[in-house]
């Protein structure tokens, strides 16, 4: 499972970070960073929740 981030769409709100702060982090420059681009399979449910929480559709899951 891989998280794909579209920086062009991301508005850096951090809704994903509120769901999984060890995977997503909006840095002090306002850009979202993926701390774990390939989180373990047992976290799929939480990753789906984080992707769904994005108001701009900037996140997708692959694999």
């Amino acid at each position, binding site marked *: 499972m891989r998280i794909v981030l579209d920086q062009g769409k991301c508005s850096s709100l*951090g809704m994903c*970070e509120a769901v999984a702060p060890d995977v997503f982090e909006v840095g002090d420059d306002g850009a979202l960073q993926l701390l774990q681009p390939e989180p373990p399979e047992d976290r799929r449910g939480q990753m789906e929740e984080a992707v769904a929480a994005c108001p701009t559709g900037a996140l997708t899951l692959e694999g």
Partner: protein
Amino acid sequence: MTATAVPRAERPYDPADLSSLAFWSGTAADRERVFAELRRERPVSWHRPVENGLFEDPNDQGFWAVVRHADLVEVTRRHEDFVSGQGIVFESMPQELLDAGQGFIAMDPPRHTKVRRLLSSAFTPRQMARIGDRIEANARRIVDDIAGKGEVDVVAEISALLPMHNICDMVGIPDRHRRTVAHEAQFAGGWRDDDLMQGAEPLGRLMQATHTMREVATELIAERRAEPQDDLLTALVQAEVDGERLTDDEIVSFFGLLMIAGNDTTRQSTSHGLQALSDHPEQREWLRADLDGRMAGAVEEIVRWATPIMTFRRTAARDCELGGRSITEGDKVIMFYASANWDTDVFTAPERFDLSRSPNPHVSFGGGGIHHCLGNQLARRQLAALFREVLTRLPDFEVVGEPVYSTGNFFHGVNAMTARFTPEA
């Protein structure tokens, strides 16, 4: 379904009244009756121009009303069809006012994306956690000041102060300016309201408010240039977009937006929330029984119930369709948030104040998309901190008499509301 485009000037107006001052002077329950009919029968409908009283715009021919949850979300997310750069409130306004108070909320990509990112790092979950103690301390300080009184004006002594201190802490506004700035910010959405206006002429008063905000912002900008601090104003002063510093006018405009969006939203949610908790003692007791476990969900329901911002506008950037209707380039499209938050396609028994409601996909922070409320997590934290403080320390807190609601189509405002409680020993 394909609709035929009717030129704006010939399009018949919907018989439902969403445009009169009388409609916006009534209660939320009165308005909901009209919204319910529209949601059921005519979810995207064309209306005569809103009664303005601020600025006559001969080109204003009306607006589309979007009242269903699904359509509101769609408009919000189709930001290329429905743009913000031509204004985000119902009324046409002089450009000077738009420039002064709307900041990046009335921008479109690509500039919106870059400018908003400058500020977003101050509102992330990590940052909110960093200032969490401060937010809780502000809530405690507010309750400290009223706890011995036994009776308070909720709006003046609680609701107005909570967001004022928190947003001013973040932006970097010293105590000496806080009350002025929070008071002047109210005119942006409150110029229809007699209590607030005190007989002043709207356009002139709004200009005066703009002028005062500019003076304060300009003074603070100069201070931050000379001596940087760890606050949002300093971040704005030092920021670059596309290799260029922001101009003073831009910073003043962001300052105005932060003050309006930061103060007048959480203020309303606090008042409506305290009233709802008082009106529904069984819900309040349910929440008190497990504050840690239930507060997050309770805040969501309170924010749905309050719907502090009732409308936002977009403008069609091109001819397109929405809900089977043909929208013409240049048409105003107004989203009605209270209506979407009462949509029975999404909410079971929306008229019930139910702190255990789950899921609760309310649109009080927006329907998603690029303009989704930047301060949503700040608002949630402030409300949770305040309600916890009140429920713990003033358990018999009770709103007495009828609150005084404000008149206007933007903020769902409460001007005054009295509460009584047993003074803290």
